[in-house]
């Protein structure tokens, strides 16, 4: 497929990520920080987000499933998760994190467990979409103009 066509597809997908509320303004801030000196900045920081999130998800899982819940520790993990998702513009993930923290302050275990499923789901959806998106970006970059 020619470059122009691919670039158009990239633009459409990017647009829908914003329109459907997966990403917010902060993602645009990241794109603006990408330049010749740091040409892969957005992908790099998103990759760091995947690694960091995997760690936090595992910690939260353990905290929820191993005996009596330490709400303060849970809140701490979720604070970190909310922080990093907010830093990359992952809107839906951030919003779920906020809901989780509310259940945490209320020490509502069931609420936390339920909301955590939502957090994981939103994270998984976003990750899949971003992986497709960046793959398209890379393809468009190397494609030739017809």
């Amino acid at each position, binding site marked *: 497929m020619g470059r122009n066509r691919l670039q158009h597809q990239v633009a459409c997908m990017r647009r829908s990520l914003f329109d459907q509320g997966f990403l917010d303004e902060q993602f645009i801030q990241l794109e603006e920080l990408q*330049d010749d000196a740091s040409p892969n900045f957005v992908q790099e920081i998103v990759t*760091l987000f995947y690694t960091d999130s995997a760690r936090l998800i595992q910690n939260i899982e353990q905290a929820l499933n191993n005996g009596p819940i330490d709400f303060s520790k849970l809140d701490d993990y979720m604070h970190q998760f909310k922080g*990093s998702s907010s830093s990359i513009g992952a809107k839906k993930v951030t919003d779920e994190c906020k809901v989780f923290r509310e259940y945490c302050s209320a020490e509502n275990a069931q609420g936390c467990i339920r909301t955590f499923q939502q957090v994981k789901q939103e994270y998984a959806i976003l990750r899949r979409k971003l992986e497709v998106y960046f793959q398209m970006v890379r393809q468009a970059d190397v494609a030739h103009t017809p």
Partner: protein
Amino acid sequence: MGMATEAQFHVLAVDDSLIDRKLIERLLKTSSYHVTAVDSGSKALEFLGLNGSHEDGQRNPSPASVSLDEDQHQQDVEVNLIITDYCMPGMTGYDLLRRIKGSSSFKDIPVVIMSSENIPSRINRCLEDGAEEFFLKPVQLSDVNKLRPHLMKGRSKEMQQNISKRKGMEEILTPDRTRTRYNELEVV
């Protein structure tokens, strides 16, 4: 080295979040600052040469610069601004602010605090205790643009101090110069 006015400003960034460290580093580098990023308040103090086992000011001949121990490396490390996250395990950004402002050698380094939480009492306390700015996360380029006046003010103050120091030293050295040389010859 080059003239003080042309040297890059050096910012020390402190944040326990890997993502936020990468972000602040990019923001600062885009603004042409030299950056050192560390993941805790204690590492920040270590980098400055300020830690619990040494008294503030003893090893540091001039404000805002530090010579590291001979068994580490001979290097003058100058920090022109510290930007730190508030919520960190162990030492918070506020604790770090207090340590810096309580140090005779480093109290003049401008400190900026970042936080994901918009808590007015927290913000006020930081500003009252010497923070120049308080940024809400996620930090953006428009926030980083606010750093320049604080850096410029620090540099002009430092240049003033260097000028008066140099004058003082010239007055001390001149009368003794011939005597010192004579002593060196004797040793040889």
